């Protein structure tokens, strides 16, 4: 039994609280514009919106890779905006992060990549699998089994397919025994079949471990059936926030319809 399973029942405990959050980049872009929402423990949230709508920035604000311009982010009781570097590192140990480009060390084996997930708990640098304690190595193998890649433990990560790489990245996050999983467009670089596999894996693990998940996506149909709640962003603002059950897909699709002049300008600038 995972230690945090007992507290899953307490649905009212907030894991992530964002209040009046804004982020303006030095070049003047207002990426996140006065956003507020609360995610209770164990909820799986899908974050939808066009490219440039502020999804990635929001994720990076939550784990402290970016600093907010104004507003408050509270994650697991830590005020991310004012946290010291050491506090931030402590917090990051409890937050899994899945990247669109996987963020694996291609030359290292899958097992070593998974072991990297335990670095936050270890002191000092590690070079090679043998420098990690045996107990962690066994744990890493279990994590690889869980994502279905136990047989590839000693294969270099760069030899895997995109879907397999993302599963190794998920196993790496599991090494952290995270309370929260942030997934920044985890399937945007994958083919449809791998996308389904990876998202099924994320939602299954989330439910089994009672993890809170914030997962940004492009496709509405991928979110339905796998998430509890959908938050839609447009131009850095929340334009949709509903429970997934019984949601009308057309309402969600509206997020992706380009209307108004500002979108046309945006389209040109991306061309």
């Amino acid at each position, binding site marked *: 039994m995972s230690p945090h399973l007992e507290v899953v029942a307490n649905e009212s405990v907030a894991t992530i609280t964002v209040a009046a959050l804004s982020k303006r980049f030095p070049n003047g872009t207002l990426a996140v514009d006065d956003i507020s929402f609360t995610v209770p423990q164990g909820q799986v949230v899908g974050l939808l919106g066009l490219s440039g709508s502020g999804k990635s920035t929001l994720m990076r604000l939550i*784990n402290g*890779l970016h600093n907010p311009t104004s507003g408050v982010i509270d994650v697991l009781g830590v005020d991310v905006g004012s946290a010291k570097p050491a506090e931030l*590192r*402590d*917090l*990051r*140990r*409890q*937050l*899994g*992060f899945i*990247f669109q*480009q*996987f*963020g*694996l*060390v*291609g*030359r*290292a*084996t899958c*097992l070593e990549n998974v072991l*990297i*997930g*335990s*670095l*936050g708990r*270890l002191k*000092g*640098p*590690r*070079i090679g*699998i*043998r420098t990690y304690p*045996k107990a962690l*190595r*066994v744990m*890493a*193998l*279990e994590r690889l*089994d869980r994502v279905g890649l136990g047989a590839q433990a*000693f294969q270099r990560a760069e030899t895997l397919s995109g879907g397999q790489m993302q599963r190794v*990245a998920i196993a*790496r*996050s599991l*090494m*952290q025994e995270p309370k929260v999983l942030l997934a920044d467009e985890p399937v945007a670089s994958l083919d449809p079949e791998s996308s389904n596999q990876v998202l099924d894996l994320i939602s299954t693990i989330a439910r089994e471990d009672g993890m809170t998940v914030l997962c940004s996506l492009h496709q509405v149909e991928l979110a339905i059936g796998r998430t509890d709640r959908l938050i839609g962003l447009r131009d850095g603002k929340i334009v949709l926030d509903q429970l997934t059950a019984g949601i009308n897909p057309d309402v969600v699709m509206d997020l992706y319809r380009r209307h108004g002049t500002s979108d046309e300008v945006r389209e040109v600038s991306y061309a």
Partner: protein
Amino acid sequence: MSATVQERRTTPPLTPQYFLKIASLLAGLVAVWWAWNRLNMSVLSFFDDLQNVVNLFKRMSPPDFAETDRIISLTFETLWIALLGTFGAVILSYPLAIGAAANTTTHPTIRFVCRSVITLSRAVPELILAAIFVVAYGPGPSAGIVALALHSIGMIGRLFSDAIEEASEASSEAVTSVGATRRQRIRSAVIPQALPSFIATALFRLEINIRGSAVLGLVGAGGIGGLISESLETIQYKPALAAVIVVFFVILIVELVSTSIRQSLIGEAATQQQNKQRGWLSSFINRRDALLNKTAYEKRAISAPWTTERLFRASAFVFFVALLVFAITTVNIEWGNAIQSTPKIGTILGQMFPPSAGGEYSLMIKGLVESLAIAIVSTFLGVAVALPLAVLMARNINVRRSLSFGTRIGVLGLRGIPELIIAVIFVSAMGLGPVPGTLALSVTVAVFASKLFADSLEEINPAPREGVAAVGASKVQEFFSAVVPQFISPFVSNFFYLLDVFFRSSTVLGIVGGGGIGFLLISSIRVYQFKLTMAIVLSVYLIVLVIEWLGIGMRRLFK
């Protein structure tokens, strides 16, 4: 389930490759240990050596600029030798490159011949070529110019032909489709595309050749190098330091100017510069150019108007031609005599065959082994110093900015001093022998390698680093888990490249008394034992080939 996991192996399987890696690392350490003992190196005497160098600098300062006139005229001679040598190499390289490039050559045989000539011309160090040509031309800059010209073909020809091969096929096809001949196609479609790269290559080689021509004087081939070694040999330390300081600044200035021109021609900075359209000067230029274009259109002009860019290019061309004419007329060469002496090179070449070590066989082997030991130890020591320097220098590795900037400036400054000048200074401070030579070479390796390693570090993919940072790893953990694994492969190939380059360097250290095969090599030329010269040159080339071959194998193993 978890019981079975306990029984499974948690360390990578021990493949033959794993043992091969361990074995080659051990072999490397054994080689360093052997070379270290062969040269009688000792860590304890480092401090004495350092003290000796410091003492020498004390005796050298303050620098004595009494002979400023001579220093200045020799500095200019150094510059003219480099300029004319590089120009000669460009003239010779152009047809060779056309013949060597796949898309412009006329026949596979021609291509093979051209490529072989280009490769061979790099095989002999320029200083050895210069010493041979001094026999033909007599002491003076002629020998230096010809040596630089021939040796530089190796790099210029190679990079020219690469640039030609990179030219887009589409424009060649378009020009061919209108019925153009092969030569018209080359002139109209290929050369315009390759020209910026040609100019950048020539400038880069000019930089290298200025460093090279500063030491040609050591074998009597003109330039400031003769003054430096002559002053040190006659214990006139203060004027020697004055000359070294002048060389240092001239090289630094040329390098800064040439780097900025090269960057405006090719690479990222060039595109950035073209996109930048701000400031009163560029707005004035834009308005002037727009007006000129408009007038030209209204007048139905049939030649391009003199826009700022065209003016700039034309004046750069005029400046360069003027410089060349000035160099040819002022350099201390009687061109008539020089041209008459050229056939002597053929005679000397004839005397080199068949190559044979004769009675000096054991001396030759001893010298070659010592050169190899010098190369191994100095590459090892230099790399050991260069690795931490490179970490400090790389802009993407998070250390203090001021520290990173300071290290880069320091390394850039030291890069300007030719290795043989450092060797001359060390030999004067510590006495003759392989130890000062090795230490001097180590300094050069450290400076050269830190730049190479820093460049490799800067090319590292940032995505894995972000992945490692996101799990809460510290900066040090991130460095060892995400940066080091990506650095291994470029490190191995750079290491063998360094060993290759500095083995060649170690073969000329003997010219200034720094040990190795260089002493026998230069003596053989001075006493006209050209068969021995050729035997040594061929042996050196053979060892270089072995190092290259070893490097290819190791690169594959540590991929």
